[in-house]
């Protein structure tokens, strides 16, 4: 049994623990959070024998902890994950792996130096849908891919991160200074903690929360390691609740052979059939990968190029057609000549749950010491471009990204 600790016991962290326990490979021994209510809740939920503390360092110091789940606000990911690796723990860290560019190389180095397992919690790396999509791409099911579009649309208060504030959110129950960490000092204001995604000081906005998933799906399916140039725009269009993170963000990323176009709209007034997905566009077809499966649409390329000869004289038209038909003989309308217009659909097994499988992949890596591929390097290859989106939004300019050196400029 892997002895697991949770640092950051909010919505994601609690979901991660539930999946870990469901796997039967782990038990929960300790929980850290800066809000007392969540520590008390942890005992209600997972048993009163769970050790709880407002100080994550007390959790890292414990010998009965083999691995930790880091599910704090983004600005705490790297400091805690690195401290955990150095304390000899394996680490499952929520996405995005880091909050700042400088932290990426530090995380990669810490993982290498300690030799511990580090896995980032973007579950699309464990999704059968993206595995299938990648397989189909390898078989050239779409010809050459020239464009990939990804989107995630929402239209609700909770989807727009207006999470609930507990009525007992007072200074006695919350270690406010610890929450702030390396962020600018500010007076107590619980909305900034419970809805931390809305604020750049602690979160990474639409890009760190959601683009990073789309990047994970893309990199997993295509084997890409990153774009060379990133541009983004958007704004706070609807959810004007004091947040400083845009609720509509559009981005374009230049990969070597295709463009990756991303959209997140938290105020999308009507539901498209699929609220989340990636669409790969190739010369021989398109492929949509969504939670419900993979769909390929193919229109075979035309058998002849066609002509535009109406503006030539009738005599010239006749001449043109004679030559054209020499080159492209008139096809006889036959059953065999009909071109197969195809749609293929691959649906994952009903019981497939990428989030659960992702946790299981982590726990199995901890047991076997064979790391899962979504390690610190993979994690920064998706987090780096996500941060570059925010830099582009901030500075209103294209940002260059060196996918080999992992440096933004």
């Amino acid at each position, binding site marked *: 049994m892997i002895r697991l600790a949770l640092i950051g016991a909010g919505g994601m962290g609690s979901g991660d623990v539930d999946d870990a326990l469901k796997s039967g490979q782990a038990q929960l021994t300790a929980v850290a959070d800066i809000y007392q209510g969540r520590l008390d809740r942890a005992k209600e939920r997972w048993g009163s024998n769970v050790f709880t503390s407002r100080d994550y360092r007390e959790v890292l110091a414990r010998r009965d902890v083999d691995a930790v789940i880091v599910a704090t606000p983004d600005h705490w990911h790297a400091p805690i994950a690195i401290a955990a690796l150095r304390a000899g723990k394996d680490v499952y860290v929520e996405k995005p792996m880091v909050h700042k560019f400088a932290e990426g190389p530090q995380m990669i180095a810490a993982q290498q130096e300690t030799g511990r397992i580090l896995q980032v919690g973007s579950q699309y790396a464990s999704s059968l849908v993206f595995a299938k999509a990648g397989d189909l791409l390898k078989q050239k099911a779409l010809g050459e891919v020239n464009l990939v579009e990804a989107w995630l649309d929402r239209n609700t208060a909770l989807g727009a991160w207006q999470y609930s504030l507990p*009525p007992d959110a007072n200074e006695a129950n919350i270690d406010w200074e610890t929450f702030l960490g390396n962020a600018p000092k500010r007076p107590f204001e619980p909305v900034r903690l419970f809805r931390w995604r809305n604020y750049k000081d602690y979160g990474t906005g639409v890009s760190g929360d959601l683009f990073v998933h789309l990047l994970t799906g893309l990199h997993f399916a295509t084997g890409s390691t990153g774009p060379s140039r990133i541009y983004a725009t958007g704004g706070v269009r609807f959810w004007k609740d004091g947040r400083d993170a845009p609720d509509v963000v559009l981005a374009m990323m230049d990969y070597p052979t295709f463009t990756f176009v991303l959209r997140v709209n938290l105020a999308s007034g009507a539901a498209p059939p699929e609220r989340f997905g990636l669409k790969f566009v190739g010369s021989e077809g398109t492929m949509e990968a969504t939670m419900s499966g993979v769909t390929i649409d193919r229109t075979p390329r035309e058998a002849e190029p*066609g002509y535009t000869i109406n503006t030539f004289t009738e005599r*010239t038209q006749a001449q043109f057609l004679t030559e054209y038909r020499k080159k492209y003989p008139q096809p006889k309308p036959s059953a065999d000549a009909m071109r197969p217009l195809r749609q293929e659909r691959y649906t994952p097994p009903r019981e497939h749950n990428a989030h659960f499988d992702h946790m299981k992949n982590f726990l199995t890596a901890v047991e076997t010491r064979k790391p899962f591929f979504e390690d610190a390097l993979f994690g920064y290859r998706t987090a780096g471009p996500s941060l570059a989106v925010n830099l582009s939004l901030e500075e209103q300019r294209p940002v260059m990204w060196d996918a080999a050196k992992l440096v933004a400029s």
Partner: protein
Amino acid sequence: MSISRRHLLQAAALTPAVALAQVSPNAKISFATIGNGGMGTGDTESALRTGLTEMVAASDVYQGRLDRAKERFGNHLFTTRDYREVLARKDIDAVIIATPDHWHARIATEALAAGKDVYVEKPMVQKVEDGVKLVDAAKASGRILQVGSQRVSSIVYAKAKELIENGAIGELNLVEAWWDRNSAIGAWQYSIPPDATPANIDWDTFLGSAPKRPFEPIRLFRWRNYQDYGTGVAGDLFVHLFSGMHFITGAVGPNRVYATGGLRYWKDGRDVPDVMMGLYDYPSRGKMPAFNLALRVNFVNGAGETSGFRFVGSEGILTVDGGVTVNRQPRESEPGYTIGTFTKRTQDQFLDEYRKKYPAQKPTMDAMRPLGQETFRPERGYSDHLDHHRNFFSAVRSRKPVVEDARFGLQAAGPALLSNRSVFEKKAFTWDPETFTARAIG
């Protein structure tokens, strides 16, 4: 052409044009087409279909198209390889300019100076600087100038405009428009006639202001593929999307432009991208809030050919293709909660307060929220192209201004042309749609 009409035109040279330019209400408007390729011929047909016009002349640098014009529109046509001979004729009220893009501004300017009303194909100009001069020239001339992006005259777009103005989708935050193609002709591989010889083509006239080059007919017949003569995907297609979108929203232009893309498939010697995407920031204007525009043209879409717009608002999405479809989803009546990580006691407390604020709703028939989808379609056979020509020639007769005038045309062409610069120079640009000025960012 009546004698009185000729007389008026001669007088126009001496007196302010606006006061004098009038076509007698019964006389047919006589027009000439300069550039008789695919678009020019289509324009000519729509112009004739209005019933308001008669065609008197055609000009083209390729002899075959002049001969064809006579075959198609009648032997009475005056034809010439030199457009200036057309402009010099007094019996011509209006000209359709459907040349390659690099000739638009010059011919349009000369046509205005010659007292003609002008229908000029999109994009209005190949270079923004030329556009600024053309806007001034059109204004000074008092002539009618309409740009040939027909969506501006479409009843479908008028319907979309009305629906959005009436709040059908709540507050607009995003517009997406796309044009996907998957064919050789869609990718501008137009046919080259077997008699495309130097004898049949005025090559130097074709080149015009473009760099001198030896005879190479593919560059004429597929001029869209070359930056020297065309304006790529942006000038051919983005400009339609800008025109349509500006008409629907009342916007005049973005204040920031960025585009990317590449030549991914149609590597036939062209020097323009076949996949291109742009992102544009529109500031708030009048009742319209700030929003973003995302454009895409892909000539290599293996699934097929589609084109359309999505206007995304806080309460619905309006799609424009052959018609208008509104998908509406009313906003949730209460925000919901995420309290699973609070203690049971705190959860109860939270719920007490929450339900005071948002009383639990009894499931009633009246409480059901209308999830709506409505589609509006024009009658079968509807042609916005015909309406656009009708609007132009009606204006020629009434002397009332057109919607898609030079200013509108440049407000659509400007960000399209800037998109090309963005791709080629790999930079983002600011754009001022009132002064038509751009500045590279960074």
